[in-house]
């Protein structure tokens, strides 16, 4: 851990600074990773699903995840 990171951690612990951008980005990165995995699972489920209503629900879910991953990536790229 670099000196700056260590100081940030201590400042966070003592409540001197609020959650900084770095930890927000870290949280988003983690979430995007999880969402990507979930998208793969949902795509596999869609391939095997024959019920029309369930297929539509799965498609909706995949669309939402796609948008969320894009949102996350946009924030991370900034």
């Amino acid at each position, binding site marked *: 851990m670099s000196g700056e990171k260590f100081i940030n951690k201590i400042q966070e*612990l*003592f*409540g001197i600074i*609020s*959650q900084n951008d770095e*930890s*927000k980005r*870290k*949280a*988003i990165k*983690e*979430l*995007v990773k*999880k*969402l990507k*995995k*979930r998208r793969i699972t949902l795509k596999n489920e869609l391939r095997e699903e024959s019920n029309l*209503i369930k297929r*539509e*629900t799965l*498609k*909706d*879910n995949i*669309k*939402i*995840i796609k*948008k*969320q991953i894009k*949102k*996350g990536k946009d*924030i991370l790229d900034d």
Partner: protein
Amino acid sequence: MKRLLLILTIIGLSYAFAQSKSILSISAGVAIFLLGMLSLEEGFRFFTGGLLDKFLKKFTNNVYKSVIFGAVTTTLMQSSGLVSVIAISFISAGLIGLSQGIGIVLGANIGTTTGAWLIAGFGLKISIATYAMPMLVFGTLFIFQSSRRLKGLGYVLTGLGFSFLGIAYMKEGFEAFKETIDLTQYSIEGFKGILIFTAIGIGATIIMQSSHATLVLILTALAASQITYENAIALTIGANMGTTITAVIGALGASFDGKKLAGAHFIINISTALLVIGFVPFFINMIEFTAPFLGIAHDDYALKLALYHTYFNLLCVAIFAPLVDKMVMLLNYVFVQKKLEASEMDDVMYINDLALDFPDTAQIVLLKETKHLFTNVFEIIAKGLSIYKEDIFSGMEIEDIIKLRHKALHVNMDEFYEKRIKDIYGKIITFTILAQGKFSEDANKKLIPIKNANIRIVEAFKAAKHMQKNMLVYIESDNEFIKNEYNHIRKNLIKQLRNMQLILNTNEEDVAILLLSKLKLDVQKYDIAANKSLDNLIRTNKITYAMATSLMNDTTYAYTIAFELAEVANILFIHEDDDLKEGREALLLNENEVDDMANNPNTRKSA
């Protein structure tokens, strides 16, 4: 009775003051010392908004760490009372378990011994009042500053200043007393003396509400040779017993788990004291044997008493730390929470006055109580749809639930509101308002959305209540079209309620994030589809005007229920973890994105 006691105390003290200036000096010393303790506690409360809470969460994950935490914080703050309050408050909020709480109490007992050492080692040997003066001046200067941290520091300094000044007055009083009367003539030797002086110690601690103050009084009296060493030990045992009564009284306003912790404190101190009472001569011999190794002079009884106090509390830890799990089992067996019958009044489960002491606990307690209210409203909304909450939790297909529950379920929603919602809602709002008046702007920013979630929960209930009237009629209607429409409302709300349950119960963050956006999308899609269907039914004369009006109103109510509860799920999930809050919020779809998706022709057909 309480008032009579107060009047008698005032009369008694006034008489004593007129008789002896020394008694006045000692009593003033005790009063100033107690004032100092209060100021010290107030000062540390300014720092608990972040620092202490975070330490507590991080360093109390097992019993032994909790013991160390309790010892260190009590040493620093010189107030086992405040540390116990923090422990009770955190247990009530569910931040730490009962076993960690017991660990903290054990540690706090050790922490109090440092105070005894400081007073016996320095306080009674130097002119302590000299140090008090600058502390009081600088402390008061800081109190008038606008910065919270400086204000806190001010209270800590004045607290220390007053404590020092109080000790000085007590010392002076006992020194002057010595010249006129020798109190040791009233000393009682033997086991009888131990019992009587233990009782006096208990009484003094209950009156002063502080074992620390009792201990200081004993030390100053002992240093002035106004009590015998053996009687002082008995008084100290009494102080350790009396402090548990103070804790039990303090825990009356605490949650169920807070009461268990006060019970643990009582068991620990009382059983150790009872054990020690029988072995006072043995302890005296042990102190006589070990004191020279620590450089304590033969006639320095104040330090010997501090050593005794340390042995007593170390014995507490040695006996009870390995038994913490067993004690938790015993307390869980003794304190059994009554299960609520459906017809009974429900009350708040987490909110308590102690949770108002710290912003973190206030937020967590508020969040938990909101979930409690949500659970109650969830149950009645399900019944308003003529289904049971168990149907929602079951894995049954929604179509099958509708087939199974085709009969109207007549429940009195007003009665349910009176018994299971009104009081809890009122107490939540009152708690939030009190908390808002107490904490900083930053802390309040976290409380306001949770308060709003409660308002939304009740709005959803009201909509369900309005909708129930027609629901009862039309799900058993002969007109298949209107029946289908109402069943469609039911299906949609069951789906929404099911998703909300998943969001609030899942451990998978990505699932919750996905479902939250899905909830919003489904609310929009349903609204579009329902309006289209209604237009169609009216145009083709399949339902009467009265039915159309009811359906139109109830579609709006159904939308309100779904919308408000989706917002509630959103708030509860987002605010569950402060560290992840911003990341979670960033990935949720906003209104425009949801509208875009809902109005997309490809998605409309699925509604």
